């Protein structure tokens, strides 16, 4: 057992800015994560023919699961980054509440569109599917779904505008906050800490993504309301995947600030920005926007050079992550005699899971592989790896740290059981997905052949373990929220 003060002296006031708003956001995030995992479990059980699920309901659950998980990953990531940026910047609480209010408004619209309007066109709302339901839903349901996205997008835009302007006010420019002085070897008496470097990069690329996403959302809305107005399908797909890819990646890049700010409490070594770190984050800024073409490798009408860039950047985009965050985490942890409690265990696991998840992503980013693998379970396998074992683990680690108090203790029996259950469940769950992909089992099918049922059923069992572990994490967090620090 140790205390924070024994082994870590923060270089800044470790204040708890707007901790109430952040804790409420994390409670909501945890609850929605658990609910969406139950939706996922229902879908896997239905594919394994253990339960009977109407196909229309399956696609509604698929849509809710996709939109809900992406949205909640982003919400929890945003709360984490806001919390840690608040240690270095003075942020407006009103903006965070407006962000949360708009997010919840979006959730209401999306849930209404799906479970009242029957919308089941997947979270990607690819043109022209929302308008071509074959009678499964009305245009109004698809419009409500897109208005929900628009509300969430406006909330995030306000969030990034506030963050961006505060970073600009504190550091004079975003490039300084991105560590350009470190890169260029210029003297800087007040170099940006890792959380600010990450925040500056995410603010830039996710703002661009949201602005382009808003354009395609409104154009799709116009098409829904006035069907005569066609939208160029290929341009729409490019914009949607740019927005979607950037948005989901941003959720991880926001949540990783928890690793930068919390792990030093355990290792006793502050995590500082240096030249390599700044170069890596500047590379991330470019790569995350240039890599989205790997989602369009099967669109043969795309210019070939774009697809080649998509493949090459898929290889390169793993390097900054693995070379800097994962390798640095290894160095920080090695020989530090840190205490392994639930928070530190989940945070280290999250970096490992994120890094491992980039491997199947890079494999699917190869044009020759993508031709046969893209529409298989391989793809949910890779993104569940870096979400379940990456972003979601970061969020749960942050939640465990928020209610930890000042004393750092080894995990007790329940924490250890929950951690092992979650780790075993998630690792098994994603491995089954990857095996299913390698066996050419298609993704997004509500009804599976007999030959595929073994995969689905094993996946369901592992999914059950994930839900169990998650319930313990979330209930433990909620129960300890009101407890006094000790």
């Amino acid at each position, binding site marked *: 057992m140790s205390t924070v003060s024994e082994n870590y002296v923060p270089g800044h006031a470790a204040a708890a800015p707007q901790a109430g708003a952040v804790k409420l956001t994390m409670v909501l995030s945890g609850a929605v994560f658990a609910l969406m995992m139950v939706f996922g479990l229902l879908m896997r059980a239905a594919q394994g023919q253990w339960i009977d699920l109407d196909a229309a309901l399956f696609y509604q659950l698929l849509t809710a699961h996709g939109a809900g998980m992406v949205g909640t990953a982003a919400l929890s990531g945003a709360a984490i980054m806001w919390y840690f940026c608040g240690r270095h910047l003075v942020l*407006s609480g009103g*903006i965070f509440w407006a962000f949360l209010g708009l997010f919840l408004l979006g959730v209401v619209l999306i849930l209404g569109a799906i479970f009242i309007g029957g919308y089941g066109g997947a979270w990607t709302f690819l043109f022209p599917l929302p308008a071509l339901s074959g009678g499964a839903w009305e245009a109004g349901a698809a419009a409500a779904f897109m208005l929900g996205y628009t509300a969430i997008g*406006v909330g995030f*835009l*306000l969030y990034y*505008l*506030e963050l*961006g*302007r505060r970073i*600009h006010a504190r550091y*004079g*420019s*975003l*490039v*300084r906050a991105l560590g350009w002085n470190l890169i260029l070897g210029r003297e800087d008496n007040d170099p940006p800490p890792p959380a600010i470097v990450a925040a500056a990069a995410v603010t*830039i690329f996710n*703002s661009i993504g*949201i*602005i*382009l996403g*808003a*354009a*395609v959302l*409104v*154009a799709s809305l*116009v098409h829904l309301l006035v069907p*005569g*107005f*066609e*939208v*160029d399908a290929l*341009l729409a797909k490019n914009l949607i995947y740019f927005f979607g890819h950037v948005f989901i990646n941003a959720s991880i890049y926001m949540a990783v600030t928890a690793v930068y700010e919390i792990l030093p409490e355990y290792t006793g070594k502050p995590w500082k920005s240096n030249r390599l770190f700044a170069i890596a984050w500047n590379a991330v800024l470019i790569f995350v926007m240039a890599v989205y073409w790997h989602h369009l490798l099967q669109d043969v009408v795309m210019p070939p050079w774009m697809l080649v860039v998509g493949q090459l950047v898929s290889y390169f985009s793993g390097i900054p992550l693995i070379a800097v965050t994962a390798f640095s985490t290894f160095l920080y942890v090695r020989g530090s005699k840190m205490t392994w409690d639930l928070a530190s265990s989940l945070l280290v696991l999250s970096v490992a899971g994120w890094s491992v998840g980039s491997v199947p992503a890079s494999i699917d980013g190869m044009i020759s592989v993508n031709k046969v693998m893209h529409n298989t379970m391989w793809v949910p396998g890779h993104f569940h790896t870096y979400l379940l074992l990456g972003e979601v683990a970061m969020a749960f680690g942050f939640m465990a740290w928020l209610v930890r108090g000042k004393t750092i203790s080894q995990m007790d029996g329940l924490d250890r059981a929950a951690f092992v259950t979650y780790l075993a469940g998630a690792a098994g769950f994603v491995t089954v997905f990857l095996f299913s992909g390698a066996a050419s089992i298609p993704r997004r099918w509500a009804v599976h052949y007999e030959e595929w049922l073994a995969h689905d059923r094993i996946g369901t069992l592992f999914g059950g373990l994930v839900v169990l572990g998650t319930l313990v994490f979330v209930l433990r967090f909620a129960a300890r929220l009101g407890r006094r620090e000790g």
Partner: protein
Amino acid sequence: MKMTVLALLAAAEAIALRQAAEASPIQHVLVQMPLLVLAGVLISWDMRGRRVWAVPLLLTALTAFLFWMLPRSVDWALTPAGETAKYLSLPLLLGVPLRLSWPWLAPVLRGFLKANALSMLGVLGFLYTHAPLRICNSYLVSAQQDLGFAFLQLAVVLACIWAVPVLFGHPRWLPSGSAGCSKCGA
């Protein structure tokens, strides 16, 4: 005085573009109309607006902006009545209120309006380049498509203009963009 002369010059240039506006939607929507708005901004450059007026003035400006965004309004602006309305409303109901309200707006709201302008230019570009019919009866489909591409180009230019000071810091030779305006009292 200098600003008044510049305002008159902008208005005169807009009126001189009357024929060109009839021939090309780009000249109409992206040159003549912005010149009229600019005339309104310049004529009110040294006026002082009050904080309590900021929201009503902004709403007035946005309402005028929304009205003139409609393709039907663009068509109407080529008729005698519409032309008169355009020459009066764009400077007085869009340019002047925007200038008087802008210094009082919170930075986040200004950023939101700019980001929304970029998104809407993208939407207009989307629609004008792919509309299956003539949106404005006064112009050819090919001219309409040119206007759509011009909207997209304008979005890129504005994005660069607005992003550069944020990315690289505010140039010292420019007046402060976010700290209000001493002349107008903000």
